[in-house]
């Protein structure tokens, strides 16, 4: 055991020597900022809200989707469409370890779905399943760079080695005062910028919450506004909500 500890310390010292103390300090700051952002984004023991999705095409035509969302902790989320009629009842349950289920009322049963859907558009919106994944950024990404402006920390994220992501990097502008994200630029695997998300936050009780996300897909010249309403924190959501038993109850 002692021998192993000695080896680990030597390895850490070697890393320090290779990377340079200044760069490591910057990364550490970036990690702290990212963790603080996670604390704001994933505030509360649980959260429930109503969502309006407005899909806007290049001509400005709008289509509207409505849904209810329940979230507990950082990795349990249930998303159920309530409108339009053709999609009402379709539900998506996300659980830890990338376990996901889709419920289609027409088939009367749930369907296990694998993580290959993560890069796909969620219900025709500009959000992918990965964008809606209920997992902290600091668990999925490593902060690589840091820039500071008068109002923002700007950090660059890259996926951790064991994380499957369809983004090569994400650049986030984080509010310096309250640590919520205000802007995210996402880059595809080829390094091309292809999505920009602009966030509006509001405060309810002790928590800051996302009031609106405006996601623009630069390749498709299409955008989606996701507007959160009737947001409630810490209502004591039962774990039963995040089960197949509840998912199929429509």
């Amino acid at each position, binding site marked *: 055991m002692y021998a192993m500890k000695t080896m680990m310390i030597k390895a850490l010292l070697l890393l320090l020597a290779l990377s340079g103390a200044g760069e490591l300090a910057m990364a550490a700051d970036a990690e702290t900022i990212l963790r603080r952002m996670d604390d704001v984004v994933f505030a509360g023991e649980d959260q429930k809200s109503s969502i309006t999705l407005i899909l806007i095409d290049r001509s400005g035509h709008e289509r509207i989707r409505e849904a209810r969302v329940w979230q507990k902790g950082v990795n349990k989320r249930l998303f159920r469409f309530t409108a*339009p009629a053709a999609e009402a009842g379709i539900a998506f349950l996300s659980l830890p370890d990338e376990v996901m289920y889709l419920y289609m009322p027409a088939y*009367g049963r749930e369907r296990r779905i694998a993580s*290959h859907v993560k890069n796909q558009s969620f219900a025709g919106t500009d959000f992918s399943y990965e964008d809606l994944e209920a997992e902290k950024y600091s668990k999925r990404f490593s902060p690589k760079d840091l820039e500071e402006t008068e109002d923002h920390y700007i950090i660059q994220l890259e996926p951790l080695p064991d994380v499957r992501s369809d983004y090569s990097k994400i650049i986030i502008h984080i509010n310096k005062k309250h640590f919520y994200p205000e802007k995210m630029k996402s880059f595809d695997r080829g390094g091309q910028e292809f999505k920009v998300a602009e966030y509006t936050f509001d405060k309810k009780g002790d928590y800051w919450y996302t009031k609106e996300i405006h996601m623009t897909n630069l390749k498709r010249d299409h955008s989606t506004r996701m507007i959160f309403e009737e947001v409630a924190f810490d209502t004591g959501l039962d774990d039963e909500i995040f089960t197949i038993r509840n998912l199929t109850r429509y």
Partner: protein
Amino acid sequence: MNTNTFILSGLLLLLPGWISAQEHPLILRGSVETDHRLMLRGDQDWAWNENRLDLTLEKRVSPLRVVGNVWIRHLGPSIVEGSGDLFHKDKINPWNLDIRELYAEVHGFLFEDLDMKVGRQTIAWGTADRFNPTSNLNPHDLEDVLDFGRMMGSDAISLQWHFSHQSSLQTVYIPRFQPASMPLRPFSDLFAFPFEIPDIIPAPGTSDQLIMPRNNFSEGATIGMRWRSFAANTDYSLSYVYGRDPLPLPTSVTLSINQDTGVPHIHATLVYPRHHIIGADLAGSIGRVGVWGEMAVFIPETELIMQVHLPPHQMPIPMPDDEVILKKEPYTKIVVGSDYTFANGTYMNVQYLRGFLHERGRDQLSDYLILQTERTFLQNRLRIQPLAGGVSISEWDDPANHHAWFYTPEVSYQGIDNLVVSIGGYFFDGNGNNIFAGMKEKNMMRLHVKASF
């Protein structure tokens, strides 16, 4: 207990709770669909004309939920044969009412973890996509044979005990037997049992008699149970069903020839044999690829022999021997499947099947490989299925003469919310005794419009 009494009993049992509170509004949802298919060969007859109002009513008074789903349909062309029929509007415009589901459901019935569902319902088991050998509680609804996997509702009591958030045991009792519905034209002879007669006999007339099980507690009932759980990041279940095959098999055939006219006639007697079915299924992922598997072992309760008779005093003619239609030995149907979405957004779903829904007995099972690809454009408004279909081999000793393929491409467009217009085609070809080979003269195009509300 007849259907109405059964459903009514369930509703009366739950009525007091239902009327005690009105916390949720009555929900009305559904769709209007029109579906038309045109044969591409011969005189381009219409193969299918359907206008359907699919209506679901739901009332929820926690923990009770009452649901009714009916189809009101105008189906098929006029069936007038004489001028007298012109006085009957239902013959000019045939229509029907189909009660698909009508049930009451209680979450937390008697115990917090016990759910009860009583009334007409469909109970879908299995993890495969549309082809589910472990789903044997409801009879197949084969009326529209191209709508694979459609089931009819059964009057049933289902109790599901949730031992944890991931594990549950479901028990189902269906008090009376309900046979599968058979395909309408042009596929009405698709599941007809083949019977070879001597070449010297001209094409016979046919008739048959179905021996239905007695409608009582023991003969007509179906029971089932399913344990479902989650382990190693995989959903799995084990199931058991004791019931009857919803498709009939012949037990006797009588061939007679009219002594005066020389016209032959075949009369068959058909039964619905009983069997035990032990099933297992799983669903999970390997890397980013979705995988599933499903297996059902069918154990016939008795051997079934088709006896061939000649009536007494009939002129002797060479006749086929009696034939074992179903051996008393287990046979296994399997589905293994996988799906994946490529980086460009193309979705692909592949399934291998051993044993289609009508195939019974070890030596009767065919192999099928089914592929579906799908790509959406214009923010999901346009959906294209360019490669959709499959191949089947019914005899590996002679695949050239016992194979079939089918191809079912489709394009759907949702120009506005709640309205989907689809155009597709059904193309079949093959040889031998194979379900898709039997469709080969029936290629068709389809127009389907669905408006949801």
